């Protein structure tokens, strides 16, 4: 049976009918990417300023640790069901759940990144007469960049992989193939959909790895 699934997935992927229209792979892929970008942008708008402030001042660090821990513990499934019961289907539920999912890595990347900067270096910058803002923007952020980018990397990967649950409540994206596939027992479609998600994730991951390396080099 599992052999058939793999062969079936191959056939599904090579069937040109699955590569056009609103239910085709390119459209679903775009949808999926769209949700991912939207989610990560919103999450970054929350997490980056907070994380940079915490990392720079060293204040509320305990709160940040507790916050990232608890947010990580919040199950996407539970959030999704809760938000859908509250506001109904639509963008809000899944985006909210996914934002919650991607805040922790972004926050941790930002504050851990700043924390990883050698105290001597920051002290040296102050000693030279950098203002606090200059210390942050010209010393801490450049030096923390690899870890900050690393935070984006894991946030994006998690969202790409978890955005599949958005299909659970009819939001589309690549998860459609997975959820529908499971429901109508079309395992080849499920597997094919999973493969597309994996490839997307790998491509993004490779891109981030490059970005991280160039951030570390400068």
């Amino acid at each position, binding site marked *: 049976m599992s052999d058939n699934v793999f062969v079936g997935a191959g056939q599904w992927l090579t069937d040109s009918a699955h590569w056009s229209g609103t239910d085709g792979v390119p459209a679903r892929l775009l949808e999926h990417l769209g949700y991912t970008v939207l989610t990560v942008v919103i999450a970054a708008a929350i997490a980056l300023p907070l994380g940079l402030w915490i990392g720079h001042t060293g204040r509320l660090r305990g709160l940040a640790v507790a916050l990232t*821990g608890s947010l990580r513990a919040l199950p996407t499934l539970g959030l999704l069901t809760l938000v859908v019961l509250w506001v109904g289907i639509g963008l809000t539920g899944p985006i909210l759940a996914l934002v919650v999912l991607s805040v922790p890595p972004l926050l941790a990347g930002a504050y851990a990144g700043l924390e990883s900067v050698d105290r001597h270096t920051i002290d040296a910058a102050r000693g030279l007469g950098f203002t606090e803002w200059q210390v942050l923007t010209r010393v801490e952020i450049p030096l923390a960049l690899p870890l900050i980018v690393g935070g984006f990397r894991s946030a994006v*990967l998690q969202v790409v992989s*978890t955005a599949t649950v958005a299909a659970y409540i009819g939001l589309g994206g690549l998860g459609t193939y997975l959820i529908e596939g*499971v429901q109508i027992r079309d395992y080849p479609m499920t597997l094919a959909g999973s493969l597309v998600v994996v490839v997307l994730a790998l491509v993004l991951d490779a891109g981030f790895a490059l970005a991280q390396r160039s951030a570390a080099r400068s």
Partner: protein
Amino acid sequence: MSWLDANLGRIGDLALTHLWLSVLPVVLGLLVAVPVGWWAQRHPRLGGVLLGSGSILYTLPSLPLLTIIPVILGTSILDPLNVVVVLSLYAVALLLRTAADAFAQLPREVVDAADATGHSTWQRALRVELPLAGPVLLAGVRVVSVSTVSLVTVGALIGVSNLGSLFTEGFQRNYTFEIVTGLVAVVLLALLLDGLWVLLGRLLLPWARTERSAA
């Protein structure tokens, strides 16, 4: 509140199941990832391939994996083992990179000092490298532990009861309080486990607490 009173026992049972469904994968993941990560860091080329495949594993969406695993393992559909296997795979995928990083970032001069004082390869690995990698490993384990507790809930979608069942059930019955109860219980469980890991770290890595003292 009366619902809570009437269901406390059941929530306790679900939490217990949830607990071992979460702990087992993390422990298994650690047991696999640490030696493999150590090895990978010593053999960068093959190790890189290994780490790469680890990250592929992590991108696999959980739901289809959960449905396909019984087919591959020949386990019964409702077997909690399926969840354990899938979550262990994730744990390995995450911890492998952490472990390799933990061993790779060991200060060179310390490893050198171990050699210089005449540690053999095994003595160095067990008495110097492993404990020194401890803090980074612990940080990784804490992340994996928390996210595993949260991932276990997906098992509820395929009939493996745990605290996630409160979500599916609450959703079906349009009862937000039940979902909120589930969320709170999951977060509490995650924090509790995290606290245990921290405690274990304190016991096993007493030196790490002195980290940021003396200039």
